[in-house]
């Protein structure tokens, strides 16, 4: 039964149709175009990270410390696992949505639990493997490939995250239980997760090292972490020294931990799912005050409610503005280091103004709500479709919401960066103009993406927010627009001043924006009509 159930759950969560949002056999052209776009996204992602780690591998090879690469592997892999489990364990294990379907079936609860854990772990291994692949490649390239080391790596890779996963699963449950007692439980969870993410980001960027490769600043920190936590050391020794004892220690301890986890969890999972998350909703006798407003305003308001009611949605698409505000405020207190941090993030040496511009543009591209918000209407899409609202008004509301989310923060950050590094008022003004045009461009592009690749048929919001074609195309399409601006800057930087280039970039972005706006105005209704609600 375990095999059938796991297969079913995997199909339910990760089939191509679910990931893409449409049947690729029926829409071959669309599938090819999306395939190319996903390939582009993968190449950009793996290529950028791969370059940095290859570079780092060379440096470590020169000083004879290639095993340090494995410290990076462990810390990144575990960091990613922690984030995934913290966000997802509660939904995968303790309060799963298909409990009502599975519970009445004659399947042993332990089998259901094992299947659920397996599906969560497969998702975790897949993400972690993809993210750490460049590190593994760089390590074996610079140390020389050997089959035993590689097999030990594969075994260790499976067992290493188990203890952090167990700890984080319980933490995830505790957060879900604790925050359920508050009226604004979702908002509290969002704040906690943002704080954790920012903490990780701050920790991962050293502000002491001046180097264009951000990874070199992390060597001491990561090797320190590896030394402090014995399983990391076992993992590293097992691979680097092909130490079978270290591998057995890792497999033995983590295998026992997993066994105990399953035994302990079995009754707990049943109890939590039987009870469900009970939000503390008291009767609200507040007097109802009716207020008329425009359709656009009421749609935008609805978007806000949806956004702050979905932890996954808010954390994933809201990290850009949060990073912006954190770094710009930090720049007031750490002026001298901010240039190094931005250079580390960009991976190249550039003028501070252009670095700030690149960083703000990156954060705006990461705010991709219009690329997924139509999909997130999900089962509620019938409401929008049956109401007398123009399709372009709905699209406009998605764009406006995204602009409200990122533009005021982007403007504030330009002013704060301006104060901290001394950008003139005129330059700030022009930068603000450019950022507004860029934000409208990205938001409109994202909205068009979602019009073309909507995905209403999802079980969990994660499928839309993190895995859908809309999300991938939205984010990496945004990066492509940054690249276009970057190329323009590169060619113009020797010809004219920064201020003039910025003004010209406003013009370039407006030229790119015009056809997109025309497209939204003329095609939204047709595309809406084709969507199945």
């Amino acid at each position, binding site marked *: 039964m375990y095999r059938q159930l796991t297969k079913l759950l995997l199909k339910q969560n990760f089939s191509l149709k679910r990931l893409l949002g449409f049947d690729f056999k029926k829409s071959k052209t669309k599938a090819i175009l999306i395939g190319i776009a996903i390939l582009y996204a993968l190449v950009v992602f793996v290529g950028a990270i791969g370059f940095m780690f290859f570079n780092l591998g060379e440096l470590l090879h020169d000083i004879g410390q290639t095993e340090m690469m494995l410290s990076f592997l462990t810390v990144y892999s575990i960091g990613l696992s922690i984030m995934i489990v913290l966000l997802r364990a509660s939904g995968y294990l303790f309060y799963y949505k298909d409990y009502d379907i599975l519970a009445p079936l004659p399947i042993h609860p332990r089998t259901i639990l094992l299947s659920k854990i397996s599906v969560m772990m497969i998702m975790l291994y897949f993400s972690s493997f993809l993210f750490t692949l460049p590190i593994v490649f760089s390590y074996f390239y610079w140390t020389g490939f050997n089959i035993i080391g590689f097999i030990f790596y594969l075994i260790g890779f499976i067992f290493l995250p188990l203890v952090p996963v167990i700890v984080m699963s319980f933490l995830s449950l505790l957060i879900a239980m604790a925050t359920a007692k508050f009226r604004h439980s979702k908002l509290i969870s969002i704040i906690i997760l943002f704080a954790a993410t920012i903490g990780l980001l701050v920790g991962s960027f050293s502000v002491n090292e001046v180097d264009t490769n951000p990874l070199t600043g992390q060597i001491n920190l990561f090797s320190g972490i590896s030394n402090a936590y014995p399983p990391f050391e076992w993992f590293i020794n097992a691979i680097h020294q092909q130490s079978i004892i270290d591998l057995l220690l890792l497999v033995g301890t983590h295998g026992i931990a997993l066994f105990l986890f399953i035994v302990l969890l079995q009754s707990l999972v049943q109890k939590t799912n039987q009870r469900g998350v009970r939000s503390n909703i008291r009767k609200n006798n507040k007097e109802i005050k*009716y207020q008329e407003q425009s359709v656009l305003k009421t749609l935008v308001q609805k978007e806000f409610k949806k956004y702050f009611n979905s932890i996954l949605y808010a954390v994933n698409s809201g990290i850009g503005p949060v990073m912006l505000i954190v770094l710009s405020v930090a720049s007031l207190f750490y002026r001298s280091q901010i240039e190094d941090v931005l250079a580390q993030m960009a991976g190249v040496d550039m003028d501070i103004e252009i670095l700030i511009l690149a960083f703000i543009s990156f954060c705006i591209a990461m705010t991709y709500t219009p690329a997924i918000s139509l999909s997130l209407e999900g089962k509620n899409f019938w409401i929008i479709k049956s109401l007398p609202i123009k399709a372009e008004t709905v699209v406009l509301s998605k764009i406006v919401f995204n602009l409200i989310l990122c533009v005021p923060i982007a403007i504030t950050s330009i002013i704060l960066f301006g104060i901290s590094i001394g950008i003139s008022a005129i330059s700030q003004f022009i930068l603000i103009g450019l950022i507004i045009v860029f934000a409208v461009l990205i938001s409109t592009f994202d909205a068009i993406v979602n019009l073309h690749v909507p995905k209403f048929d999802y079980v969990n919001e994660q499928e839309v927010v993190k895995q859908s074609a809309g999300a991938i195309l939205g984010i990496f399409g945004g990066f492509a627009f940054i690249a276009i601006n970057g190329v323009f800057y590169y060619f113009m930087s020797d010809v004219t001043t920064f201020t003039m280039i910025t003004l010209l970039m406003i013009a370039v972005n407006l030229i790119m924006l015009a056809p997109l706006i025309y497209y939204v105005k003329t095609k939204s209704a047709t595309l809406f009509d084709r969507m199945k609600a």
Partner: protein
Amino acid sequence: MLDIKDVSKSYDGIKQACDHVSLKIEKGDLFGFVGHNGAGKTTLLKSIAGIISFESGDILVDGFSIKKDPLEVKKLIAYIPDNPDIYESLSGIQYLEFIADVFKLDSNVRAREVDKYATMFEILDVLNNPISSYSHGMKQKLVIISALIHKPKLLLLDEPFVGLDPKASFLLKEVFQEMCSQGVSIFFSTHVLEVVEKLCNKVAIIKQGKIIAQGNTQEIIMNKSLENIFMEIASES
């Protein structure tokens, strides 16, 4: 009020979910729509509401075509689906305000209508609570209220009595009759043949996408029960 002209719809290009369907619903009609599961009832209702498109034919509401003037049609209608999937991130009152904003109801009208129907269906005291905390029946009541507050000329309902408690079902039937007496047309699908028999002045039976019987309820059933008629017609090949 509602003129369905030779409408055909297929989801896969092979099987017809609606096969050359034609129906006329006059002002004040209370029209019941019955058929097996998968016969095409929901498809037709969704097509009228502009939720799904159809390949051929046309649907006119008060002279406006859903294909050519969808917004004009949607201003005249209210649609209630078989499953009350509504925005769970909103509170009940926020959802009703949203609908009222879309239909541009002024504050006084929305206050009066919401108060009237929320009191009637006994959910006034939970309107400030999030929809996510509502039961299936409460959500169904909220969707019904959202459809009634803007006074549509045509009310489309897909299995409206499913999930409602007996009192709410009774009240909804009363509301139906009151609305029809004021000239509103109501077109609803149901499996409860007794309701159609007692409540509706007209009925249509759909089988495999085709309308196989339609007309005045009394003329269709004559001296038999609608259940007998339905079983007879449905069993014919």
